[in-house]
C-alpha cells in the first residue's frame, strides 16, 4: 500500500519534469502528444531570445552576491550566537531566521514601499538586499549546526601553539566548517536563483530568469520554455551529485 503510494507520488512529482523534457523536442509549436516529429528548434530559440540570457546572468549575479554576502554575515552571526552568552542572543537568532516565515509578498512589498517612499534608493540595490535577507536563514542555520558540533579544543590547541584567536579560527575552525558552509551556500544559491514572488515586486526593467520565463509563458505558447527547463535540470542534477558525493543529502534538505 505505502509502496504503491510512494511510486505514484514520485511519478506525480516527476511528471511535470518528464512532460517538459518530452515536449521540448516537439517539432510543432504545440504541447500536444504524441509529437509530430523531433526537433531541436526550441533549444535554438532559448539562445536566440535575449531575455533568457539577460535574466540568467542577472539571476546568477544576484544569487552569487547574495550568497557571498550571506556567508560572511552568517558566519559572524553564528560565531556570536554559538560562542557567546549575551543579552538579546535568542532574539538575534530569531531575527536572522525570521525571513523564512515572513510571507514573500510582505517582504517584497515592504522593501518596495520602503525603498521608494523612504530612501529613494536605486532598484538594483533593493534586489541584492532582498536576496541576501532571503537566503541568510539557510546558511546561518547550517553554520550554527556546524559550530555546535565542532570540537572547540581544536581551536584552543591552535591558540596554544601560538596562533592568535583570529588565525586559529581562520586556519583551523573555518576549514572544519567548510562542508556546512558549502551545503548552506548551495541551498541559498538555489533559493535565490528560483525566487519569484518577492523578486517580482522589485524587478524593474531588468528581468531575472524566473520573471523572464514567466513573461514568456504568459505571452507565448510554444515549447521554448520546455527546452529551457530541460537545460536547467542540470542545476538540481548537479546539486544531487554534489550532495551525494560530499555533503550528505540529509543536510541539504535542512535536517
Amino acid at each position: 500500500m505505502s509502496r504503491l503510494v510512494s511510486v505514484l507520488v514520485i511519478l506525480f512529482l516527476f511528471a511535470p519534469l518528464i512532460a517538459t523534457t518530452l515536449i521540448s523536442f516537439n517539432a510543432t509549436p504545440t504541447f500536444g502528444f504524441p509529437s509530430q516529429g523531433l526537433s531541436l528548434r526550441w533549444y535554438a530559440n532559448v539562445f536566440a531570445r535575449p531575455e533568457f540570457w539577460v535574466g540568467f546572468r542577472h539571476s546568477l549575479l544576484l544569487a552569487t552576491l547574495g550568497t557571498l554576502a550571506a556567508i560572511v554575515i552568517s558566519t559572524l552571526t553564528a560565531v556570536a550566537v554559538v560562542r557567546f552568552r549575551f543579552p538579546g542572543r535568542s532574539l538575534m537568532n530569531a531575527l536572522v531566521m525570521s525571513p523564512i516565515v515572513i510571507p514573500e509578498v510582505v517582504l517584497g512589498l515592504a522593501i518596495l514601499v520602503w525603498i521608494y517612499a523612504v530612501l529613494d534608493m536605486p532598484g538594483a540595490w533593493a534586489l541584492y538586499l532582498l536576496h541576501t535577507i532571503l537566503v541568510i536563514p539557510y546558511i546561518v542555520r547550517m553554520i550554527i549546526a556546524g559550530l555546535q558540533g565542532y570540537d572547540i579544543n581544536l581551536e584552543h590547541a591552535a591558540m596554544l601553539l601560538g596562533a592568535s584567536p583570529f588565525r586559529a579560527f581562520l586556519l583551523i575552525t573555518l576549514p572544519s566548517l567548510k562542508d556546512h558552509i558549502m551545503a548552506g551556500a548551495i541551498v541559498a544559491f538555489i533559493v535565490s536563483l528560483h525566487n519569484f514572488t518577492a523578486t517580482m515586486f522589485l524587478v524593474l526593467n531588468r528581468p531575472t530568469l524566473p520573471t523572464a520565463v514567466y513573461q514568456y509563458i504568459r505571452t507565448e505558447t510554444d515549447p521554448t520554455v520546455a527546452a529551457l527547463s530541460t537545460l536547467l535540470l542540470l542545476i538540481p542534477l548537479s546539486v544531487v551529485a554534489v550532495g551525494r558525493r560530499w555533503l550528505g543529502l540529509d543536510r541539504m534538505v535542512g535536517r
Partner: protein
Amino acid sequence: MPGRGSIRLSGVEVRYGSVVALRDFGLEMASGEIVALLGPSGCGKSTALRAICGLQALSAGEIWFGDRLMNTVPPHHRKVGMVFQNYALFPHRTVAENIAFGLAVSGVPRRQHAARTGEVLALVQMTERGGHYPHQLSGGQQQRVAIARSVAVSPDILLLDEPLSALDKQLREQMRHELTQLLRGIGITTVFVTHDQEEAFALADRVVVMHDGAIVQCGTPAAIYARPNSRFVADFLGSISYLGGVLERAETGTGTVLLDDGTRLRGQLVEAAGIGTRVDVGLRWSSLRPAGAAGDGGGGEGSLAVTVRERVHRGDRVEYRLEGPGGRAIRLLALTATGAAHDVGDRIRVRADANDILLFRPATGPIREGEPA
C-alpha cells in the same frame, strides 16, 4: 630569580557565576618538575590546567611563569604546550602539517619546519607517519603526535589533560612507561591532570590531591601514600578498610584507640581529634597480616580478632573479606605464597604496624576542604 619554566600560582580563584570552580589555589613548581593534579571529576583540576594556559580567566589570584606575571597574557603568547584529552589533532592536516602548524604561526622560517618536525617525530618514534592523517592512526599514535606537536614549538611548560584516559587498559600501561621516559628525557616543566592515582604516582615528582575546587594535600607520591592527611585522600587512594573506635590517648602524631570489641590499637593520628571522641581507624588492605587463629590468646597490641567471610583468589595474591569488630567489613590482601590459607568461617587474628594504621576524624558528610593535620 626564578628560572625559565618555573611556575608560581597564588590565591588563584575561578568562579562561574556563584559556583566556585577553583578556590585559593597555590602551587610552586621548579623548572623541570612534573606535577600531577589528582582528584575526582569536578574537583577543579581541569579548571586549574585551563587557568595555567590562559583558556580560563581568573576571578582572583596570580599566575607567574618565572618572573613574569601571566594573568593578562593571552594563551597564544604563554608558550605553554597542551596535550588535550582527545588530543585535538587537526583532522584536515597530516601529522607533519599538524606539527608544522605551531612552527608556522610562531614565525619559525619555513625551511626549518621539516628538520624540526622530523626531530620531534623521532622523539616520539613516529618518523614513518608524517604523511598520515590523524584518523589513520591508533589512539596511542595520536597521543604521541599530540605530544610531538606540543613540544615542537619548545614551550616552557607542558600541560597534559588526562593523558592516558582515552587509551584502553593494556595500551595505558605501556604508554605510562613511555610517557615517563619521554617527559624525563625532555626535562620540561609538566603539569598533568588525572583521576587515576596509579598514573599520578607513576609519572609525577609531586602529586596535588584536589577536592571541591581546593587543594587537599600536596606532596611526593610516597609521602601522600604513607600519610594521607584526611579521610578524603585516604578514600581516594583507596584500598583501605575502616573500623570505629574511641580515642583514648594522643601523643605527637600517634594515638591509641579502643575499638568497639575492647581491642586496643595504636596508630598514626593524621587529623587532630579530642580525647574520648570517636575516630575512624583506617587499615590498608595490603598492610594487614594474618597472625594465627583467634584462640591463641591476646596476640599483643595491634592485633584484632576477625571472622573470614569470603576468600577471593587474585592471581599472585589472595583477598580475604573479613568481619571485624562491630561487624565492620575489612579486606586483607596477602601474597599467595606466604602464610597459611584460611577458610571461610575461621576465626583468626590479623595485625598491622602502628605506622600503617591511620586514625581519622569520623567522616560525617562530605569533606569540605583540606584542613591541616
